[in-house]
């Protein structure tokens, strides 16, 4: 069963707002071996002009995950989660995420390709802050392995 090609262009309802917590940022920073003090120390972050601790570059994946769950659970998507492998990932930033941000994320499927029995689903999760300004877009390609 291949992924439904009619998913292309489908946009999902916005997710959020996700409140970026200071301790969550610290926890994530430790998990990705982020040692620059701007990621954990409020004083260091403020000295560099940030409002609070800075989230490491891949932190938006936490929010992206909530939007991808919408896609994976879409009844007509035909995506078997046990066959999903992460193919590639990209982030395009307008600014770094900082603790205190309230992020709203909207997912859109931009491409579905089938190649040698595998399907590749690319989606973009666009994240904006409480003022509506763009913060980061997380672009992900999931590879859904075919049967056998």
């Amino acid at each position, binding site marked *: 069963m291949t992924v439904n090609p009619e998913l292309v262009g489908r946009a999902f309802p916005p997710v959020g707002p996700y409140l970026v917590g200071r301790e*969550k940022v610290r*926890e*994530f920073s*430790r*998990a*990705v*071996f*982020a*040692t*620059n003090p*701007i*990621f954990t120390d409020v004083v260091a972050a403020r000295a*560099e*002009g940030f409002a609070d601790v800075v989230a*490491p*570059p*891949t932190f938006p*994946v*936490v929010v992206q*995950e909530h939007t991808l769950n919408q896609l994976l659970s879409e009844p007509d998507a035909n995506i078997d989660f*046990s066959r999903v*492998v*992460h*193919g*590639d*990932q*990209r*982030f*395009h*930033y307008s*600014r*770094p995420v900082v603790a205190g941000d309230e992020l709203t994320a909207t997912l859109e499927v931009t491409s579905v390709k089938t190649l040698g029995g595998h399907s590749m689903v690319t989606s973009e999760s666009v994240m904006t802050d409480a003022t509506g300004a763009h913060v980061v877009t997380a*672009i992900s390609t999931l590879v859904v392995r075919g049967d056998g």
Partner: protein
Amino acid sequence: MPLGLSVGDSIDTTTVHLDRVSLVRYAGASGDFNPIHFRDDVAAAVGLPGVLAHGMLTMGFAVQPLMNYLGARGRLADYGVRFTRPIVVDPDSGADVTIETKVGAVMDDAIRFDLTVTFNGETVLGKAQAQVVFD
């Protein structure tokens, strides 16, 4: 020329040691609780050679040497990778992953850094590139 760097300059080489605790910590921090990242029996049942590091964990730590190098200079505008090979994390010895950060391209107001991430002598990320702008 931003930071006085030229194409091909190597700015850092760092080795990160992963163990099973690293994977559990990342699972909790990220919310990705796929059991192939902490259960040997599940990894074996789906035909994997062992428990694997999350691809997003590798992407997450691979850019940290660049973050340390830059400090407050420049702003990360774009970061992308392809996941090309898995990192198997041995329950006893873990896994050592090496990151080399080099200058891939220099523009008037931006630098593209290329990350070479290797495990057991093979690259695990493809086209791992970070674009830094100096506005």
